[in-house]
């Protein structure tokens, strides 16, 4: 005798099963939506910018004539910015991470610093611009220089580097430290020669992520008063300069079609730069990452 009537069970299950299939497709569609938008975005930019994207575009100065305009000053400016942000943010970020992970005792001050860092990560970038304007541009009288922009951007990306470095340092196993202490090494020797080398892939990956954030950021630099249009290069960190996102912003806000196409070409340069940075990050991670 059959206690379970299969057809009845199936009948009863049917709406629930089809419900499941329906929602599964819906969820899949939602996931694909993001990928689709990314595809459209890239296609639009490449199809619009390609006619202007050539070697000359990289070498030309900005110009009122779209045929002769280029990104030379902005591209070099972005590289100057990276040259300031990379060392400053790495030293501050890794130093903070080492302090919090290796030296700090679990007390109120440490907790406060930690909470402060996560709150800092949530502050809108334009507010950092206001800080930079008041402190670096006006109080330190640096003007809209490479140094003022670089310091502002370093503070902006600091939380990213700190959190990444903390995770990297935390993932170095205790055994390595103990072995080092056992051989008579001091705490700083252990950190410098054992912990940091083991944590370096994670730290560098975080650093490159932070750097890509810094070169794509526009809002704080507008507040700092960087020019949208500049026909000469900075000679030192105290000179005025402009960066790729500012140049793109300038072209985007003009109504003519040609300038919009130039903006697309500028975006291509920026995205290629970002792609390069992220490829380096992935390579570092794959080359040096060890699992303990």
């Amino acid at each position, binding site marked *: 005798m059959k206690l379970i009537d299969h057809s009845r069970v199936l009948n009863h299950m049917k709406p629930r099963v089809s419900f499941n299939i329906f929602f599964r497709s819906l*969820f899949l569609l939602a996931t694909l939506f993001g990928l689709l938008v990314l595809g459209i975005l890239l296609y639009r*930019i490449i199809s619009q910018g390609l006619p202007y994207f050539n070697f000359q575009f990289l070498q030309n100065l900005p110009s009122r004539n779209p045929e002769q305009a280029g990104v030379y000053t902005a591209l070099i400016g972005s590289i100057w910015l990276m040259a300031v942000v990379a060392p400053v943010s790495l030293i501050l970020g890794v130093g903070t991470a080492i*302090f919090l992970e290796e030296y700090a005792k679990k007390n109120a001050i440490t907790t406060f610093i930690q909470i402060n860092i996560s709150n800092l990560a949530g*502050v809108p970038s*334009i507010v950092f611009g206001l800080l930079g304007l008041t402190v670096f541009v006006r109080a330190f009288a640096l003007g809209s220089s490479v140094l003022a922009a670089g310091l502002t951007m370093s503070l902006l990306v600091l939380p990213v580097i700190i959190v990444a470095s903390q995770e990297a340092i935390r993932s170095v196993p205790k055994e390595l430290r103990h072995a080092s202490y056992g051989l008579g090494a001091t705490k700083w020797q252990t950190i410098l020669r054992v912990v940091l080398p083991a944590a370096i892939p994670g730290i560098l990956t975080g650093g490159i992520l932070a750097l890509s954030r810094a070169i*794509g950021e526009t809002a704080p630099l507008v507040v700092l008063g960087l020019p949208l249009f500049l026909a000469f290069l900075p000679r030192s960190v105290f000179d005025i300069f402009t960066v790729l996102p500012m140049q793109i912003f300038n072209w985007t806000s003009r109504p003519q079609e040609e300038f919009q196409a130039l903006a697309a070409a500028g975006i291509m340069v920026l995205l290629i730069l970002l792609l390069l940075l992220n490829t380096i990050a992935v390579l570092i991670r794959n080359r040096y990452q060890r699992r303990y």
Partner: protein
Amino acid sequence: MGDENVNHSIQDLISKKFKKKRAGFSFERLVPILLFITALISVLTTIGIVLTLIFETITFFTRVSIVEFLTAKKWFPFSETHGSYGILPLVTGTLKVTGIAILVAVPIGIASAIYLSEYATEKTKKIIKPILEVLAGIPTIVYGYFALTFVTPILRNVMPGLEIFNALSPGIVIGIMIIPMIASLSEDAMSSVPNSIREGALGLGSTKFEVAFKVVLPSALSGIIASIVLAVSRAIGETMIVTVAGGSTPTLTWDVTRSIQTMTAYIVQVSQGDVGYGTTVYYSIYAVGMTLFLFTLIMNFIAQFVSRRFREEY
């Protein structure tokens, strides 16, 4: 005799070594202090932001009354004689854009999270998640360009009444920008729900959808809400998309088809213009920045509170 000699020389060696190390010893003590100073920089940054905003905002309020700032219905700062400083139109602009962004991002983000956490195989997840995260890494000026040159024209084809600069287009694009944030954080929250709970529900005859909706979603709710609040905070502070595609006319209306100005876009507009240092307009950007800062700060505190208070421990 020989033994004594050996002992002596070893002691010598040790004390010699110790003397040599003494120079290093002070360095050993100096390092934590130096590192503590670098750690203080992040605290100083926060203090700097707060003090900057407070002092310059106070200067602003010596010229414009705080009551006018909070209650006046017009934001019209560029007139010498009829200047009006009511923050409400700017706040309205920000809230409109944020609302649209959330309407776009929450359903799509959570649906993606459910798919990735409950339905997708490990392999699919490993491919899709990084691609989604690329969306989060694209500079906002690129999204601004996309909103102005692609989304707005399409919307204007569908809705002929839409102005070139409007709240709808940047709202949608900001929504797209924060999808990966909601999807990624919510997926983390859902993935941390232990499998034994899922298996229990499946064993009772639930379909995967029922497991996702009635078991996993409620258990991961605190993480999901925190991700949404963080996304709101991100949308409120977003600048370039609304500057490029939103326009520069602060209006106190909930009509999303018209040109707007958000708090962030106002700060950009003033920074770009030739506003002299020390003028009331110059100080107004700090007052607006202060308002913006308070909005995002409250959001961040809510997110931290929610994820701590309502977390289910397994």
